[in-house]
C-alpha cells in the first residue's frame, strides 16, 4: 500500500469533509428536534406542511406537472390571502416518477421525513392505488385530483378511510357517453378504439360497451393502440371498414389529437366520442379545427361557464397558459384541503373527518359535495361538442342525475 502525497491529501480532505458534514447534520437534526419536540402534533408550528406527490418525470409527467401547478395556485391564493387560520401552508413536493413503486417511496418520504399532514396526488390511478396503503397505515389523508378509477377509494366494497378524490369516476363517464351516443346521436353501432397500455381506457371501454349494448346498440369492432404511438392509420383503415355510427376513444389528449387528425385524413366522417382525457386545448392544436367537427367528449367543467371564469383567469395570470383538466382538478383538490384545514383541521385525523363532510364547497370547476359512503365527490358532468375549434356545451348532467 502506498499513497502518493497528493492522493493522501485529497483522501484526508474528503474524510474531513464527511466528518464535518456528519457533525453539522447532527446539529441540524438536534435543532429540528428541539423546535417540534415539545409539541405533540407536527402541524402546530406556524406553518402547515402538506405533501404534493406528483409524476414530475416519466411518462405521466405532463399530467402530474399540470395537476401540481393547479394545486400550487390554490395554495398560493390561500397564502396570499393571509394563510389559513393565520398559518401559511407549505407544500413539499416529491416526484412519483410515473411509477407505482416510486409513488410509494415518495409518499413514505413525505410522511416520515417531511411530516406532512395531508397528501395531494398523484395524477394517475395506478400511482394513487399504490400510495393509498402507505397513507392508510400512517393515517394521513390523500386527495387524488384526477384518478377516476372506482378502485381508488373503494377496496372490496369497503371505502378506504383516508383516500378521497376531487373528480367523478369512470363508470359515470362511460354511462353518460353511451347514453349520449344512443339517444342524442341515434347511434346503432359503435367501434371502441382503446389505449391498451392504460387501465383508464380499458375500464371506460368495458363500461361503455355494457351500457351501449344495454340500450340496444352494438359494438361491432374493438381495436387498440399504445400510449405514445404516433401512427394510427393502419388500425383506422381497419376501423373504417366497420362503417360504425360512432367511434369511442377514451384516451388522453396527445393520442386523441393524432387519432382524430389521421381518422379525418383517411376520410372517416363518423362521430368520435371521448372522455375527460380529451380535455386539453392542445387537442385542437394537434388535430386541427376541421378534423374536430363532429366530436364529443364528457368532462368535469365547461370553460364557458360563469362559475369557472375566476379559476381560468387566475391560472392564466400565474402560468401564462390555458389550464387543462388536470390543472383544474389539482386546483380543486387544493381547495378541498384548504377548506378542511380551515374548519379546524390541525391534524391528519381532523382533516380526514373534515374532507368527508365537505358540502357545497365552491371550487375551481363548480361546487363539490363529498359522498361519505364512497369518498367520491358529487359533481356535475358536462358533454362538450367541438365546432370549428370552439367548444360548445352540448349537455349538462346535474349531480342528482348520477348514481
Amino acid at each position, binding site marked *: 500500500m502506498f499513497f502518493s502525497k497528493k492522493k493522501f491529501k485529497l483522501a484526508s480532505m474528503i474524510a474531513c469533509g464527511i466528518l464535518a458534514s456528519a457533525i453539522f447534520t447532527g446539529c441540524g437534526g438536534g435543532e429540528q428536534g428541539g423546535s417540534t419536540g415539545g409539541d405533540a402534533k407536527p402541524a402546530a408550528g406556524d406553518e402547515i406542511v402538506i405533501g404534493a406527490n406528483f409524476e414530475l418525470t416519466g411518462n405521466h409527467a405532463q399530467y402530474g406537472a399540470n395537476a401540481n401547478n393547479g394545486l400550487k395556485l390554490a395554495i398560493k391564493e390561500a397564502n396570499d390571502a393571509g394563510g389559513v387560520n393565520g398559518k401559511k401552508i407549505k407544500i413539499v413536493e416529491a416526484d412519483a416518477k410515473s411509477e407505482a413503486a416510486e409513488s410509494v417511496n415518495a409518499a413514505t418520504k413525505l410522511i416520515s421525513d417531511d411530516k406532512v399532514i395531508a397528501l395531494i396526488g398523484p395524477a394517475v390511478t395506478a400511482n394513487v392505488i399504490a400510495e393509498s396503503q402507505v397513507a392508510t397505515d400512517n393515517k394521513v389523508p390523500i386527495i387524488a385530483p384526477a384518478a377516476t378509477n372506482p378502485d381508488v377509494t373503494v377496496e372490496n366494497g369497503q371505502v378506504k378511510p383516508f383516500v378521497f378524490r376531487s373528480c367523478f369516476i369512470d363508470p359515470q363517464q362511460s354511462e353518460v357517453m353511451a347514453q349520449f351516443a344512443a339517444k342524442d346521436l341515434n347511434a346503432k353501432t359503435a367501434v371502441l378504439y382503446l389505449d391498451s397500455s392504460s387501465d383508464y381506457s380499458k375500464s371506460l371501454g368495458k363500461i361503455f360497451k355494457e351500457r351501449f349494448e344495454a340500450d340496444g346498440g352494438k359494438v361491432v369492432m374493438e381495436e387498440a393502440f399504445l400510449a405514445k404511438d404516433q*401512427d394510427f392509420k393502419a388500425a383506422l383503415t381497419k376501423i373504417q371498414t366497420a362503417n360504425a355510427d360512432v367511434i369511442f376513444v377514451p384516451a388522453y389528449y396527445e393520442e386523441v*389529437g393524432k387519432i382524430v387528425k389521421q381518422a379525418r385524413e383517411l376520410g372517416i366522417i363518423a362521430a368520435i366520442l371521448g372522455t375527460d382525457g380529451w380535455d386539453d386545448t392542445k387537442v385542437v*392544436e394537434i388535430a386541427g379545427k376541421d378534423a374536430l367537427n363532429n366530436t364529443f367528449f364528457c368532462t368535469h367543467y365547461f370553460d364557458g361557464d360563469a362559475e369557472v371564469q375566476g379559476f381560468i383567469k387566475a391560472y392564466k395570470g400565474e402560468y401564462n397558459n390555458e389550464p387543462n383538466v388536470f390543472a383544474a382538478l389539482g386546483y380543486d383538490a387544493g381547495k378541498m384541503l384548504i377548506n378542511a384545514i380551515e374548519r379546524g383541521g390541525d391534524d391528519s385525523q381532523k382533516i380526514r373527518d373534515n374532507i368527508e363532510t365537505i358540502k357545497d364547497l365552491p371550487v375551481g370547476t363548480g361546487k363539490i359535495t363529498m359522498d361519505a359512503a364512497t369518498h367520491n365527490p358529487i359533481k356535475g358532468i358536462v358533454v362538450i361538442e367541438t365546432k370549428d375549434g370552439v367548444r360548445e356545451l352540448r349537455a349538462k348532467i346535474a349531480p342528482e342525475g348520477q348514481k
Partner: protein
Amino acid sequence: MDFVHQLIQQLINGVSLGSIYALIALGYTMIYGIIKLINFAHGDVYMVGAYIGFAAVTIGGLPILPALLISMALTAILGMLVERIAYKPLRHAPRISLLITAIGVSFFLEYTSMYFVTPTPRTFPEVMPNISFNVGGFIINGQQLLILSITIILMAVLTYIVQKTKLGKAMRAASFDTETAQLMGVDSDKVISMTFCIGSALAAAAGVLVGVYYNTIDPLMGIMPGLKAFVAAVLGGIGILPGAVVGGIVLGVVEALVAGFLSSTFRDAAAFAILILVLLIKPSGLFGKNTNEKV
C-alpha cells in the same frame, strides 16, 4: 371497401411509416458498422433534432426546408459531442461499458430535455398545406409524399458519400477492420466522429419530419421509434446500409398489415417477434453475410 382496396391502403400507410424507421435505422446501423456500438441514445438524438426543428420553425419563423437543414446541422454537432465526451474515452474499454454508457446518454438526453422544454407535448405549426390526394379511392397525404421524397434524397446523398468519396472509403475501411485501416493511414477518430455526425443528421431529419407529419413532439418521443429502428437495423443486417432501409420499410409494412388484418393489439408484438425470429433464424439479417463474428 373490399380486401384489395384495404390491402393497398395499408401498404401506403406501411411504407410511409417504414421510411421513418429507415431514416433512424440508418444512423443505428452506420454507428454499429464502425464501432460495434448499439447506440441506444440514437432515438433521443432524433428527439433533440425534432425540438431544434420546432424551435427553428416557431421561434425562428423559418419554412420547413431551412428548418430541416438547421436541425440536421446542429444535431450533427450534438452527435459528435456525444461521441467525443461519452464514447471516445471508452474506445478500448469492453463493449458492455460502451453499451451501458449509451443507455446513460439516452436518459441524460431525455431528462435534460424534459427539464428545459417541460414534459408537455408541443404541437408543430402547420408548415405546409395539408393536402390529401385521392388516387382512385386511395388516400395519400402530401406530407407522406414529403417524407418519402426527403427520405429517398437523403439516402441517395448517403450512398454517394459512402460509395464515392474519400471519407466514405475510409468509413468502409474502418468498419471492415479499424486497426488495419489505422495502420494504412486512416484517421479512425475522425472517421468515427464523422459517422456520428452523419448518423445524427439523419436522425434529426427523421425527427423534424415526424414532427411535421404527426404534429406533436415530446421529450420521450424517441424511445419507441428508437427501439423499432433497432429492430429494423437487425432485420436488414446490422452494419449494412441498404439493409437498414429495407428493414425499416419491411417493418413498417408488417406493422400496418398486422394492425389492419389481424389486430392492432398485436402490432408491437409482431415488430419484436420479428427481432426474435431474425436472431434465431438468421442473426446476420436479410442482407448479412454469414460470418461467425456478427451479432
